[in-house]
C-alpha cells in the first residue's frame, strides 16, 4: 500500500499534475465517459468481426477436406487447387468489382455502383470499411467454393477459374445487394420488403448450391457413375476421416459465420452461437437416424452431410428463432438432406459431396424456417417474402450460372476429356500426385 502511494506521488510530481486537479474532477458516470465507452465498444466490434472473419476463412480448409475426402485420390491435388484459387481469385474479384456491386450506393435496389477497388477507404478515413470488407470477402468465397465439390473430378481447371471469378464479381454480389446492401452503403429491394436472412442461408448457401446445380447439369455425371441400365454405381470417397475433419472445421467456422454476422460485439451472439450448435447437432442426429432406417446402417457420409445441413438451415434464422426452434430447423434439415441426396442421385445429377442438397435445398429450407419460427410471430406476409427471396435466388443464380457454364463450355471448355478423367485430374491438369507413395487402388469403376 505504502509503495503504491509513493509511486503515485512520484508520478504526480514528475508529470507536474497537481493532486488538486484530480480531486476537482466530478465522479465519472457512463454519460461523462460516453466517448471512452463507445471507443471500447468500437474496438470490440472490430475485434469480434475480424476474429469471426478468420474463423469463416478457415471454413475454406473445411470445404477442401470434405471435398477431397468424398472424392477419389487421383483428383485431390485438383480439389486443393480449386479451393486455393477460388479464394484467391475470388478475393481479388470481390475487391475490384463484387464489393461495389453488393454494398455500393444502389439507386435502383438491384445493384450498387460505388466502392469498387475498396475506394471507400482513405488512409485518414474510417477503417470500418476494411473490417467489414474482410468479413464479407470470406462470405463471398464460401459461396464460390460450394460449387467446387459438386463439380469435382471432371471439371477443367481453367473453366472452373473463369466461373469462380464471375461468381465472386457478379452473381453473388448482385443477389447479395438485394438482401444485404443496407449493411453498408447499399439498399436492396428484397431487404426493403423485410426479407430475413441473417447470415446467409439464401445469400451465401443457396447461391452456391444453385450455381452448383447448374454446373453439374452442364457437366453431366462422372464416367462410371451410372450403368447403361441407369443403375447408380457409387464412386467411393477416398478418405472419410478427412471428410469428417472437414465437417468439424466447418462446424467450428460456423461459430464465426453466424454469430459474427452481428459485426457487433454484444450479448446477442450467445443465442446465435447456441442456435448454430443445436441445429448442427440435430441435423447430424436426424440424418444418421434416417440413413440407419433406410439403409440398415448409420451411414457416415450422410451423417456428416446432416451436420452441415443443420448448419445451413439455421444460418438464416439464427438470430430470430428460439433455441428450441433451432433444434427443429436443424432436425428437419437433417431429414431433408438425405432424401435430397437420394433424389438428385436418382435424376442423374451427379454431386459427389451433396453440395446441391446441403447448400441449395437446405438453404431454401432455412430461409423459409426463419419466417415460420420467427420469435416475434409470423404472418402470411413474412412467409410470402421469404418464399419470394428463395425463388428470386433460384431464378437469378441458376439462370446466370447456367448461361455462364454454357458459355465456358462452348468456348474454353468445361469438362476434361474421358481419357483425362480416367487418368485423374491431378496428373493431367497439375502434373502431380497427391499421394505418390501409395499404389493405385485395384477398385475400378469402369
Amino acid at each position, binding site marked *: 500500500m505504502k509503495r503504491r502511494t509513493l509511486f503515485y506521488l512520484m508520478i504526480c510530481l514528475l508529470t507536474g499534475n497537481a493532486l488538486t486537479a484530480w480531486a476537482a474532477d466530478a465522479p465519472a458516470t457512463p454519460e461523462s465517459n460516453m466517448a471512452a465507452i463507445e471507443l471500447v465498444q468500437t474496438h470490440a466490434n472490430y475485434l469480434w468481426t475480424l476474429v469471426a472473419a478468420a474463423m469463416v476463412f478457415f471454413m475454406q480448409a473445411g470445404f477442401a477436406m470434405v471435398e477431397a475426402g468424398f472424392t477419389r485420390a487421383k483428383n485431390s491435388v485438383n480439389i486443393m487447387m480449386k479451393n486455393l484459387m477460388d479464394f484467391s481469385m475470388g478475393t481479388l474479384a470481390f475487391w475490384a468489382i463484387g464489393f461495389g456491386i453488393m454494398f455500393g450506393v444502389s439507386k435502383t435496389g438491384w445493384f450498387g455502383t460505388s466502392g469498387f477497388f475498396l475506394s471507400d477507404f482513405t488512409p485518414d478515413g474510417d477503417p470500418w470499411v476494411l473490417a467489414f470488407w474482410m468479413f464479407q470477402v470470406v462470405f463471398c468465397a464460401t459461396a464460390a467454393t460450394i460449387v467446387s465439390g459438386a463439380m469435382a473430378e471432371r471439371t477443367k481447371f481453367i473453366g472452373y477459374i473463369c466461373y469462380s471469378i464471375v461468381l465472386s464479381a457478379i452473381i453473388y454480389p448482385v443477389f447479395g445487394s438485394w438482401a444485404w446492401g443496407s449493411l453498408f452503403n447499399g439498399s436492396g429491394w428484397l431487404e426493403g420488403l423485410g426479407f430475413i436472412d441473417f447470415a446467409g442461408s439464401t445469400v451465401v448457401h443457396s447461391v452456391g448450391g444453385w450455381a452448383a446445380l447448374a454446373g453439374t447439369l452442364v457437366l453431366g455425371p462422372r464416367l462410371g457413375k451410372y450403368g447403361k441400365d441407369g443403375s*447408380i454405381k*457409387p464412386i467411393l470417397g477416398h478418405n472419410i476421416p478427412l471428410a469428417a475433419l472437414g465437417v468439424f472445421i466447418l462446424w467450428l467456422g460456423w461459430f464465426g459465420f453466424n454469430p459474427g454476422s452481428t459485426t457487433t460485439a454484444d450479448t446477442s451472439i450467445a443465442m446465435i452461437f447456441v442456435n448454430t450448435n443445436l441445429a448442427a447437432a440435430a441435423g447430424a442426429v436426424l440424418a444418421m437416424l434416417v440413413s440407419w432406417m433406410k439403409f440398415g446402417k448409420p451411414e457416415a457420409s450422410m451423417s456428416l452431410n446432416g451436420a452441415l445441413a443443420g448448419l445451413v438451415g439455421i444460418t438464416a434464422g439464427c438470430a430470430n428463432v428460439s433455441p428450441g426452434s433451432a433444434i427443429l430447423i436443424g432436425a428437419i434439415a437433417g431429414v431433408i438432406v438425405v432424401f435430397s441426396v*437420394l433424389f438428385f442421385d436418382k435424376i442423374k445429377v451427379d454431386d459427389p459431396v451433396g453440395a446441391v442438397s446441403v447448400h441449395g435445398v437446405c438453404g431454401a429450407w432455412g430461409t423459409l424456417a426463419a419466417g415460420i419460427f420467427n420469435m416475434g410471430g409470423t404472418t402470411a406476409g413474412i412467409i410470402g417474402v421469404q418464399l419470394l427471396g428463395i425463388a428470386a435466388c433460384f431464378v437469378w443464380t441458376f439462370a446466370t450460372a447456367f448461361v455462364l457454364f454454357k458459355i465456358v463450355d462452348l468456348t474454353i471448355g468445361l469438362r476434361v476429356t474421358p481419357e483425362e478423367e480416367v487418368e485423374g485430374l491431378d496428373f493431367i491438369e497439375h502434373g502431380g500426385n497427391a499421394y505418390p507413395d501409395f499404389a493405385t487402388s485395384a477398385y475400378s469403376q469402369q
Partner: protein
Amino acid sequence: MKKIEAIIKPFTLDDVKVALNEIGVTGMTVTEVKGFGRQRGHTEIYRGAEYQVDFSPKVKIEIVIDADNLDKAISVIREKALTGKIGDGKIFVSSVEEAIRIRTGETGKVAI
C-alpha cells in the same frame, strides 16, 4: 525344397509367424493381397447406394523350407490360421529347384 504359399486372414498373421518361427522357419515374405474364393465378396453402402466388394483383403505368406519340414509347417499354419468360418484361406505347395543367398553365394538348403 518346397515353397508354401499360404493365403490367410490378415489378423492371424502374427500368430502364424510366431508359430512358424518356433518350428525353425527363419524367414518369410508377406504380401497384402485381395481376392475371393468360396467366401465371395460382400455388399457395402455409400451415400445410399449399395455396391459389391468382390475382393476381400487377405495376407499371402511365402516361405521356402526343407521338404522334411513341410508337414509340420502346414499343420502349424492350419492350426494358427483356423477360425472355422468361411474365408480362412488356402495353402499351396510347390517344389523349388534352387535357392541362392545373394550375399554369400551359398546354394541349396543352407541358403533358405
